[in-house]
């Protein structure tokens, strides 16, 4: 994917997250997942444009053949985008839980989604807005 492809995908995910997180859909598990994937594509656009890095996965893996650790996207965020690292990781954990554990079907889900949207997503999104994204 190109930088422009990542940005298009990021914005599309952001718009869809808004729709999923409001009436009539109120699908908070998917809204949370889409917020995370919106940020992920902003991150990938940044890493590609500024660092010429295209991460292969979320987390570090051990390359047995070369005997070395290969960083994952989470490591690159920590290294190159420390200002969004905490927010990014919170959304990363929440989206995993949404996808694999069906964690956001309770009455607390609206509040959880709103908090993520207004705090973690908003603060990280602001960083990319400063880049004109």
């Amino acid at each position, binding site marked *: 994917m190109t930088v422009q492809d990542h940005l298009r995908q990021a914005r599309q995910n952001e718009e869809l997250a808004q729709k999923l997180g409001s009436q009539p859909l109120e699908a908070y598990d998917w809204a949370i997942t889409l917020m995370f994937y919106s940020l992920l594509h902003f991150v990938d656009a940044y890493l590609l444009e500024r660092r010429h890095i295209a991460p292969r996965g979320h*987390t*570090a*893996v051990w390359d047995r053949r070369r005997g070395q*650790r290969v960083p994952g996207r*989470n490591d690159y965020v920590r290294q190159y985008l420390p200002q969004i690292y905490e927010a990014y990781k919170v959304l990363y954990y929440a989206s995993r*839980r949404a996808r694999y554990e069906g964690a*956001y079907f309770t009455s*607390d889900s609206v509040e959880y989604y709103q908090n993520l949207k207004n705090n973690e997503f908003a603060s990280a999104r602001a960083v990319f807005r400063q880049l004109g994204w």
Partner: protein
Amino acid sequence: MNELEKIKDALKALQAIDGVKGCFLEEETGDILHVYTITCVANYNLDKQIFQEYAALEKRFPYVSFEFLITSQPPSSMAEMVF
């Protein structure tokens, strides 16, 4: 006390958080350490407290690659129980 024992000791701070039911640790080659914290419900304020402990751990052991998770399900039998 070796490094792993120090990390396990530091993870016990999670026990003080109301809502945390347990903690597991799984080592992977290359200093990659998976930490699983078990909670029964997905609660924003509870999760934020756990994230703060995770962040403190990352600062204290910057050379370790932590992969943290908060989950309602106990991890694989390969993981070691911290508490």
